[in-house]
């Protein structure tokens, strides 16, 4: 009896030890190969890096509608469009399981580079591949609403745009103050990271995909919009044949309307039809959305007679669904997400394009 007991215990212990030992030894072996790789890879071009990482299957992206620019980039350099699914931290990049990791310039890249709380402290030892430089940029954060909502409440839409753009303009010119406003409004990240994010977001708003300065906030540049739509048609894969067909026939007129923006800029609008409105963000409260927080804090929404409720995102119900349901009136999404939603049968309308260039980069260790 006693003997059997000890034998069972020993067997269990041996099993656990084998399991842990096995993992441990493999870990060290991968680490050594990593260091040799990084020493070789100092003077590669972007293309060489993309090809090398794709061949190893070590290009990372979050998927879930964020992957199209990466797929376009991989296709451009003759690689398959497969990528590794990256979690919402940069641990995969840190431990080398992803060599080309997706990062937003204003968020993940800051965490990789900076040494504040939560940062990975890489400093200048990392480089980036910018989607804008490779002609595969797709436009991101915009403002949209339901087409029927815009038709029924044109003055509300114009007033909302007018005040929001004023908020964005102030935020981009006073990024530290804007970061503080977002932080106080219930930020999801540290105040240091918020400041970094605000300054990076301002760059995306004030510069277009070609690197030219933009002064006309919110404009829907036809060329960049068309590039976004063309890439979306190529890389958004829909299994539903009805949706897929509709995607193929979409034109810019099906996804955006510039008239509200023009009227808002000219100040040409009357009293809002609906005064209590809400906007659904694409993600948690952070400086990515500082324009709305600033407009609210500075009273710009009050000035045009609106009472705005800012609804944080980040859950599994997408912003397109929330707006289409009528749960919220306005939303912030990426143009590609709006395109796939409209292909599936939603009737959404972009009314302003806040980010003028892609904030997505691939980050690598030099």
């Amino acid at each position, binding site marked *: 009896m006693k003997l059997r007991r000890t034998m069972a*215990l020993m067997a269990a212990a041996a099993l656990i030890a084998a399991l842990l030992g096995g*993992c441990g030894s493999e870990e060290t072996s991968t680490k050594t190969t990593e260091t040799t790789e990084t020493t070789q890879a100092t003077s590669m071009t972007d293309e060489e890096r993309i090809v090398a990482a794709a061949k190893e299957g070590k290009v990372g992206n979050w998927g*879930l509608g964020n992957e199209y620019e990466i797929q376009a980039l991989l296709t451009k350099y003759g690689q398959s469009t497969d990528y590794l*699914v990256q*979690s919402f931290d940069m641990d995969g990049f840190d431990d080398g399981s992803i060599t080309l990791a997706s990062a937003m310039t204003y968020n993940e890249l800051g965490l990789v580079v900076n040494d504040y709380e939560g940062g990975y402290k890489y400093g200048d030892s990392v480089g980036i591949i910018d989607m804008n430089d490779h002609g595969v940029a797709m436009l991101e954060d915009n403002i949209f609403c339901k087409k029927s909502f815009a038709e029924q409440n044109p003055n509300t839409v114009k007033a909302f745009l007018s005040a929001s753009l004023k908020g964005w303009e102030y935020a981009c010119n006073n990024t530290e103050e804007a970061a503080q406003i977002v932080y106080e409004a219930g930020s999801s990240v540290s105040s240091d990271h918020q400041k970094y994010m605000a300054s990076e977001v301002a760059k995306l708003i004030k510069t277009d995909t070609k690197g030219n300065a933009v002064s006309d906030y919110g404009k829907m540049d036809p060329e960049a919009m068309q590039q976004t739509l063309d890439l979306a048609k190529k890389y*958004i894969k829909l299994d*539903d044949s009805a949706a897929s067909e509709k995607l193929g026939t979409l034109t810019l007129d099906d996804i955006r309307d510039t008239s509200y923006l023009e009227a808002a800029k000219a100040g040409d609008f009357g009293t809002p039809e609906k005064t209590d409105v809400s906007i659904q963000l694409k993600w948690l409260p952070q400086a990515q959305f500082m324009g709305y927080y600033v407009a609210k804090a500075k009273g710009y929404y009050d000035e045009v007679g609106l009472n705005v409720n800012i609804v944080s995102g980040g859950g*599994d119900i997408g912003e397109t669904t929330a707006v289409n349901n009528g749960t919220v009136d306005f939303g912030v999404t990426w143009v590609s997400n709006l395109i796939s939603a409209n292909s599936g049968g*939603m009737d959404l309308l972009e009314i302003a394009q806040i980010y003028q260039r892609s904030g997505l980069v691939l980050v690598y260790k030099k």
Partner: protein
Amino acid sequence: MTKRKLNFDSATSLLYPLIFGIVILMMWQCGVLHSIFRTDEYILPYPTRIFRIIIENFDKILENVNSSVFVIIIGLAAGSVLGYIAAIGATVSPKFGKGGLTVISAFNAIPIVAMAPVIMNWTKDVSSDAEVRSTVAKIIVVTLMCMASMSINAHRGLNELKPFSLDLMKSYAADNKTVFLKLRFPNSIPYIFTALKVSVPGSVITALVSEYFAEYRAGVGRQIRENILIAQYSTAWAYIVVACLIGIILFALLLAAEGIFLKRRKS
């Protein structure tokens, strides 16, 4: 007489759910469900559209089903075997056993969404192939979930014996091995099925949710999530229907197996 009655009973027990299902489907197709739930045909697409998508994408769906079912079956088998071994261990040494089983069952209380990322991270170095390491991680999550229900139930089956049966065995001077084979093991079989009735649907859900967190994009659960996030509800519903079918088929197989085993045992 009894035989005919039995047939009638089993016919109605199949017929009523079938009629109920058809009524629901018809209400769904006619939009009655939509007005009850105050939703539109976008969030809750019509059955005809869902089935058209399933037919059109049969190969792709099958690929994802294969990936999910592989994880479910291996995880279920591994978890059940390990759980049973743990139950035997706990029976052999009750001192450590009780505590050990409590620890194992504590795994059941950890939400999958919390455990999956931890396991994904842990298995990072298992293979250089993302598909392999993702599959291993998903299997481990399912295994842990299935272990708990099996170990608790099997432990009861191995120990809640008929009064005096253990005394009887001892009076025959049966050794531990004989007690196990002739008494404890047969006694535990119905408990094994009780455990499986919990862990079969549990393993389906666990596998689908753990796919959310896998590095490699594969599986029915992954497709559901991706399609919902890019607002493709019809396609997501096609995969939801497929996920339901996987659960129903596995459960039906389990019931059939139970019928065979327990009937043989009775006769």
